[in-house]
């Protein structure tokens, strides 16, 4: 589902969003505010996503747990709390 191409695709997507935001921003005295806010938000959110994605792309460590019940992995789970 998600692999190395995701970054490129997402950049294209955010760039397209920015372009649309730039031209579709409502005209008038608040146009600059709309443009700046939409474009900057899009790229900030993208940056955050991209960093998180890249950090997990080739992870160096794997999750470890010692408190798992044997039923957890698909087995029948006993009734009661699961938290």
């Amino acid at each position, binding site marked *: 589902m998600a692999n190395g191409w995701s970054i490129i695709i997402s950049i294209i997507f955010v760039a397209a969003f920015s372009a649309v935001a730039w031209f579709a921003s409502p005209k008038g005295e608040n146009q600059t505010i709309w443009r700046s*806010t939409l474009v*900057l938000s899009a790229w900030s959110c993208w940056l*955050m996503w991209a960093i998180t994605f890249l950090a997990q792309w080739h992870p160096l460590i*794997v999750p470890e747990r010692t408190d798992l019940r044997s039923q957890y992995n698909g087995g029948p789970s006993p009734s009661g709390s699961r938290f």
Partner: protein
Amino acid sequence: MGKDTLFRSADMTLTQLYVANEIGREVVSALGELGSMQFRDLNPDTSAFQRTFTQEIRRLDNVERQLNYFRSQIEKNDIPMRSLYEFDNRMAAPSATEIDELADRSQGLEQRVQSLNESYETLKKRETELTEWRWVLREAGGFFDHARGQTEEIRQSIDSSDDAPLLRDVENANGSAEQGGHQQSFSVMNIGFVAGVIPRERMAAFERILWRTLRGNLYMNQSEIPDAIIDPEKNEEIHKNVFVIFAHGKEIIAKIRKISESLGADIYNVDENSELRRDQIHEVNSRLQDLSNVLGNTKRTLDAELTQIGRSLAAWMIVIKKEKSVYQTLNRFSYDPARKTLVAEAWCPTNSLGLIKSTLQDVNDRAGLTVPTIVNQIETSKTPPTYNKTNKFTLGFQTIIDAYGTAKYTEVNPGLPTIVTFPFLFAVMFGDFGHGFIMALAAAAMIYWEKPLARGKQDELFGMAFYGRYIMLMMGVFSMYTGLIYCDAFSKELSLFPSMWEWEYPADYKPGMKVEAKRVEGYTYPFGLDWRWHDTENDLLFSNSYKMKLSIIMGWAHMTYSLLWSYVNARHFKSPIDIFGNFIPGMIFFQSIFGYLVFCIIYKWSIDWYAINQPPPGLLNMLIYMFLKPGTVTEPLYSGQGTLQVILVLVALVQVPILLFLKPFYLRWEHNRARAKGYRGIGETTTVSAVDQADDEHEAGANGRPSFADSDFDGGAMITQDMNEGEHEEFEFSEVMIHQVIHTIEFCLNCVSHTASYLRLWALSLAHQQLSTVLWKMTLKNAFAFSGITGIIMIFIFFSVWFCLTIAVLVVMEGTSAMLHSLRLHWVEAMSKHFIGEGIPFEPFSFEAMLEDEMTELK
């Protein structure tokens, strides 16, 4: 002329207005409604008392005082007042006659209210006195009855030696009362008495003083009045005691009277004859009855009067305040007696000029004057004020910037990007979907009920939150986003997509054994952090490395972005030297060290180190050894790394002398070249002789406004008279050099320290996440251990505790802390890269702003 945006402060024009004297008031009033002109004071040397309209202002001050008096009376009597908002706020400017009427009316009303008040107070005082007298009569009667039985005893004790216990308890005396019954009069025994009331807290002092001054030659009885007595002057309740003092000898009695009066006691006439006393009581009672009737009438009249006033008081206040500010503004104008016109100078946004002109035309037409009001634009070398037009959404963000400093006229306004970057950096630290949702919800509620909330009274804390409600909304929304990225909602995971990790159980699995996850081949978790990391043994190991790198990259992006604005500023102010001497070397320096670090972080992430069978290099050591041992790389990241790093370090080092010397030496060269050609700065004073200078000063002092003195009224006149106010600086090489040295050192060191400073993003987000995990574990998680009806109760109790603590600690406290850190990142780390500042804020003459400041108490 472009339109005014938040990107830069608006273009300003200095205008000169020539207003016919007759309509000065109307013109200023119309401009006050418009609220887009900042009038300069044209009579700075004139004191407040010597100005033209001092008389009018004094009169209005008096009316304002009267209105304030009405308000205090209305508040004192708890009479409802019609709120400010029930009136149309944009009331048309009242005519001069209306103002006169209002002044007369309030004068009359004041007298009426005052006389009513006075008589009410007198009556009230009378009533208090009568009540006190009644108490004295009633209590003293008891004393007399007791005392009469003991005349002999009293006599003895008064006659006997000074150590006799005269000041005995009433109780003591009670024991031997009733036994006598001989109707021996006090006057026969030459015993006089004083009766009265005194505040209870002074009783002890009163007793002591009497005892000491009279050396015990007295007999005193006292009792407490059970009901509090109301002091009519202060409207306070006071507890008082009745006392009766017996002593013999006229002098001693006179002395007692004096002492009593000086201690604030009220002495009342009581007859010793019980019959007469009864009559007195009757009389007092009937007088009290009459008095309370009159009092009731007076009070009703007063209340009716005040209710009538309260209905329109807020509107009168607005009218008077507006009128007063109009005259205060008129006082800033200068008067041209020859043409009978008022002359004003004002800054206004260039784009509002049209509106101003049409407004003035309207006023003229209404007044039916043939002489038009003239608006001239004047060229000036003065620095125009900085004016960023805001709306209710951008106001909060602009306030953040203005709290740090006013931007230079037309420099890039950091307020625009702050709309996003401030709440976003906040959200990086506050990232939790649940907490963000609560914050967004609170902000949305404040925005939805904006009007009623704005009109209500707000305490300080709520007022602050309400002022920043749009900031809070953005912070909440972005926190929800970063919460999704961090995969945290109230510290629990959000499993939006299938995980990229599968638990791999060993064949002989028993609970308690360590289980490692195995990656699903070729699949990366598509959005945010994988939820399988939650509650693992090594989640901190992973998330710390991730969040630390996130902070560095975020900081790098934010600083690079901010640094780019300095290029835009240099272009705008047409100073290429700032591009070549500051922006380019600075940018190269920053990118060759920290840009390279960011590149390495991303490069390292994009390589599958296990697939290519190489150990992943530590980036921290790489950066350190890049400077300590240039050229040697112990754990290679890519081939040719050593050479590239040497080049980068050299490039960075070369920028330092460029930063240091290019700009100052260029400026000196430019200055010398201009000098060589014989130019000099406007207003630069070159004193040829002392006489010349004195002459200059004389001329400036004589008319103060040379541009008028020559009656040269064409719009192109250059105003240069205030040049020596320090707006022009003479070139001095040493100063420029010192300035540049400081700038260079600061910039280079700050590149390092500011990048490190962004690590607070990691630290705070770690703290926030850990705190919410701990809160969950300490409260709500425990509730799930119970079952049955106890379980239900426990869940209810623990949920309330958990929820309240979540709001108080995690949303309010942590939110405040994250907000302050975000504030710092903007003020220090980002704004230091491009902000010039030193601007003058634009403070237009506006009724709206003035009323907002002054009428808060009328809400």
